[in-house]
Every structure is written in C-alpha cells, then in structure tokens.
C-alpha cells in the first residue's frame, strides 16, 4: 500500500463523480485540441492552397482586395472584369517568367447534388495555366483539341459530383451550350478539384465576356523583383495587384475574429473545468474530513495528505486529458465540416491537424490543470488539525 494506490482507491470509491469530473476536463481538452489542431491545420492548408496556385502575384480588376483574394482562392462568381489588354501588356514584361489569364464564373444548376441544386464553377484558361501547375496530372483524357473547342476538363471532385467520364456531355444551365468532357484532373487537394475548366475563348463566348478576364496569375523570374513589379503595376488604371503573401495574411485576418471567439470558448471551457475539478475535490475533502483526521492521527504528515489529494486531482485531469484527446481525434471530421461551413474561406484538404506533439502538450496541460485545481483543496486538507478533523460531525 502506498499513497498512489490510496489515491486510486479513493477515486474508485465514487466512480460516477470521478467520471463526471473527468468528463468536464475531457470536453475542455477536446475543444482545446480541436481548436489548436484547426489553427495549425488551417494555416498549413492555406499555405498549401496558395503554393499550389503556382503564381506569386494576382492581378484583378479594382475592387475590394479582400473579396478578390478570397474569391480567387475559393472560387465563385461576382468577380469584377478587366480588359484582356492588361494581360497583353504585362505579358511583355521581361521580369515575368510565366503568366496565365483566367475568367471565372458560377452557374446555379438545379439538378446538381442529386436534385438539391448547387453552384457549378467554371474557369476559362489557357495552356499556361497548366505550366504554372506542373504537379497537376490527368486522371483521364487530355488537353482541349483547340483554343476555342466546346470542351471541358473537369476537376476530380467536379467529375465525381457530376458523374462524368471522358466523352460525356456537359450542359450549362441557362447558356444553351453543350460541351464535351475531354479530360479529368487527378485530385490536388485544392479548389481546382471542384472546377470545370474550358478554353478561355470558349468561356468568353459562352458567358458573353469577350476580351474580359477576372484574374491574371503571374510568376516572376526573380522573386526579389516582386516589390518593384507590384509598384509598377499600381500605376495601371482599373486593376489591383495582390501578392499571394498578402492573400495569406488577408485570409488569416479574415478568420482571426472567428479564432478569437473560438479560442475564448476554449479558455472558458478550461476555466470551467478548473473550477469544476476544484469544487469536486473540495467537496470530497469536506466529506472525508474525519478520515483525514484519522490518517493524521495514525501518522500521516500534512504533506502526505497534500500528496494524496493532489494525486487524486491529477489522476482525474489525466483521465480527462486522455479521454479529451480521444474525443478530439474521433470528432476531427465533424469539427472540420463545421468550420468549413461557417468560415468565409476554407482551404482544401485536411483542416484539423492534430500532431503527436499537440496530444502530448494537451496531456501535460491537463496534468498542469490538475495540479493547479488540486492545490487549494490539497492545502485545505493538509492544514486540517487532526483533533478538529476527528471531532467534525460529532
């Protein structure tokens, strides 16, 4: 028999109370791990999305740069248009390594998603788009037969959703146009997976935007020229220049207020858990006042009593920490889907990134919470005078 075993046995004495208290800690730990996992995962996914765009600078028509950045990343209609002359001018700049014009729009399709309806996103591109994304591979098929062919290449998820294969026909609602599927890209884990691509000219014809673009992606020969390059483009009328480093910062700013809210919830959850544990252990100490007095009478020092109570609290929090981690791992997909619904922009791929380091840190955190929560009850118990404790309740 030792104090460790005694602490275990004391907790086993009131199983329901122990599990309920550990449950409170588990919820707090699960929330915290999920949020921290999301924080790390979101930044990672955003970085991956931006890197996979393949260009460093994006030129769009003048408007809200935040909106433009978000729309370019997540896709969607409502982008402003600029003249293709801008592209024709920038393409001659000797600092430009690669450049690609884009025209993006969305169309509501009532038959999409098994009749529930939904927006299909279309993008007009040129061959340069693929040159900027050398990692992009075909799952099936190939590039368009000509620059103005009535053909589409579908992103992996778009093809899955539409259940289309090579040679199948695509009908764009409201546009009275039928196109043929000529290629399907492999999964990239980015927004490209959900897009239906077609030749730029075809897109301009179908959407009646002749000579118009929504964006120009640019990769420079020397990244150190980026500031000077941006400066030069600021003088061009009707356009705005967004570096993708800015986009990253912009989107992180956009979600920062949501993060403040969710982190506040996590902090409150931890605070409530600390109070809950402290209250439970304190009640348990009061219930066992006489027992503590007897233990002191038969030789327990104040430190022995302190250790027993502290160990009990730490065990509860450790149990809560382990359970919380299991919950966080198990509920990762639910958390991810919830965030994807509520956030203005969610990058593709996995958003909740729970690392072994995070799990270990959360366990250590739970133990620390136990130590802090147990401090006051343990001190109360340790400071009891044995004679008063034995007499209590008489």
């Amino acid at each position, binding site marked *: *028999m*030792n*104090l460790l*075993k*005694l602490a275990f*046995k*004391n907790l*086993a*004495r009131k199983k329901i109370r122990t599990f309920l208290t550990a449950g409170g800690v588990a919820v707090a730990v699960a929330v915290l791990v999920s949020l921290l996992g999301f924080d790390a995962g979101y930044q990672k996914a955003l970085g991956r999305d931006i890197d996979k765009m393949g260009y460093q600078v994006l030129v769009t028509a003048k408007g809200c740069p935040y909106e433009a950045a978000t729309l370019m990343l997540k896709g969607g209609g409502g982008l402003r248009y600029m003249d293709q002359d801008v592209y024709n001018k920038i393409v001659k700049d000797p600092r430009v390594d690669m450049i690609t014009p884009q025209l993006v729009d969305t169309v509501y399709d009532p038959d999409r998603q098994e009749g529930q309806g939904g927006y299909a996103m279309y993008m007009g591109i040129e061959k340069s788009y693929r040159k900027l994304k050398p990692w992009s591979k075909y799952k099936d098929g190939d590039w368009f037969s000509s620059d103005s062919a009535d053909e589409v290449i579908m992103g992996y998820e778009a093809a899955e959703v539409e259940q289309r294969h090579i040679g199948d026909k695509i009908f764009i609602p409201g546009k009275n146009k039928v196109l043929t599927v000529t290629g399907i890209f492999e999964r990239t884990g980015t927004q490209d997976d959900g897009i239906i691509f077609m030749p730029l000219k075809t897109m301009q014809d179908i959407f009646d935007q002749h000579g118009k673009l929504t964006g120009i992606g640019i990769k420079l020969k020397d990244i150190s020229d980026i500031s000077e390059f941006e400066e030069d483009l600021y003088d061009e009328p009707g356009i705005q220049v967004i570096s993708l480093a800015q986009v990253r910062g912009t989107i992180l700013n956009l979600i920062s207020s949501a993060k403040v809210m969710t982190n506040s919830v996590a902090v409150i959850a931890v605070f409530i858990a600390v109070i809950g544990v402290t209250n439970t252990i304190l009640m348990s100490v009061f219930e066992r006042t*006489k*027992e503590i007095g*007897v*233990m*002191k*009478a*038969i*030789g*327990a*020092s*104040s430190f*022995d009593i302190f250790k027993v109570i502290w160990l009990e609290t730490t065990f509860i929090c450790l149990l809560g920490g382990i359970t919380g981690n299991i919950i966080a791992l198990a509920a990762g997909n639910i958390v991810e889907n919830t965030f994807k619904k509520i956030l203005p922009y969610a990058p593709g791929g996995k958003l909740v990134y729970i690392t072994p380091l995070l799990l270990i840190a959360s366990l250590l955190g739970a133990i620390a919470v136990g130590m802090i929560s147990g401090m006051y009850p343990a001190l109360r118990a340790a400071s009891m*005078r*044995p*004679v008063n404790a*034995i007499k209590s309740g008489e």
Partner: protein
Amino acid sequence: MNGPLIKAENIYKTYVSKAEKINAVNGLDLDIRTGDLVSIMGPSGSGKTTLLHILGCLDNISGGKLEMFGEDISAKKEGELVNIRRKNIGFIFQDFHLISSLTALENVELALCLARKKRDREEIVDLFAKVGLGKRINHVPKELSGGEKQRVAIARALAASPKLILADEPTGDLDSKTSMDIFELLVSLNEKEKSTIIVVTHDETLGVKAKRVIRLKDGKLQN
C-alpha cells in the same frame, strides 16, 4: 516497576468562547508507566476524550507540563507531534474509522506506510491472527461485522509496534458480548505483549477490568 511513559503535571486545556472560558482539563496530574492498562471513566463532558487527544499528541495543552516518551511535549507544534505519534502511538476509535475503500489488510498496510515502517506480509497476517481475524483480511469494512471492524482497527493500532495504544470508547458501537471480547483482547495484549493501553470508556463493567481506573469529573481527577 517500569519507568514513566507519560508524566502530566497540573495540565489544563482551556476552550475560550465569547461567553465563557471552559477548562475541559483542569489542573490534572497523571503518571502512566510502561505496561499499564488504564481505564479513564467519567460522565459525559468530564474531559475524557480531551485528555485522550492530549495524550495522543493530537491536541496541545493550555497550561502545565506534559512529558511523554522522555520528551517535554507541552509546546510542540503539529509538525513535531506527528513524528511522536508516528513512532509511539496507536489509536483505536469508537466508530473504527477504517478507510472504506481499502481491505482490512490494506488498512493495516496504509498505517505502516504512514508510520514509515515496513513489515512482511506474513508478519501482518500473524498480527491479524493475534487479534482474532485470521480469515477475513481481504474483505473491505462494509463486509465485516462491528466486532471484526474493531479487530482490524486494533491490528492497525498495533501494526507499527507503538509504545502506547489509546482507545476512545472502543466498545461504544458494539453489543455487550462483542464488547467483552474486544476488551478482553486489549487486556490480553497488555498482558502478553506488554502493550501500554489507555482506554476511555463509559462501561463500568469493562472499565474495572483495567489495572488502573482513573475517574474524571469536570476535567479533574476524582480518585
């Protein structure tokens, strides 16, 4: 004749409330020798339990001088008193005060752990046999009768081989037959093991079986 284990000279224990001062122990002189079996008797409120708590180093005296185990403990603090209790004193309580989640054996092992003493499992089993509880040592208190619980409490008090055993109404919660058995066990331990035992009891028929009887009234010795 054995030397004095406890020597109390004119000791007081005073409780001060808003309205009055109460001397629970009121100028008491006492001399307990090694191997004594002493009954402390008296009516309720006579100061029996207070005296037992003082002799158990659970409470300080308010005045006078108290020597125990060759040390003046009159003004010792709790940190020092716990060491004296751990080395020298075993307690038996009226309502047993066993740890409910631990078996009889574990209750005794815990007492040894707290007293920083080690004993082989065989020695502990022998100790249970000595107190008449050989077969139920792996039962938790709720599975034991009152008499069996008190035997576990006695085994716990004896576990660390203390110089002094203090029993506060050890038969108070037991029927008369079990009370007699438990008291005879204490008498037998005193005779065979030469344990020094002080018993607080209300029960006249049991109390008079001790070698010495101390009667208290209003915190003072009557005899």
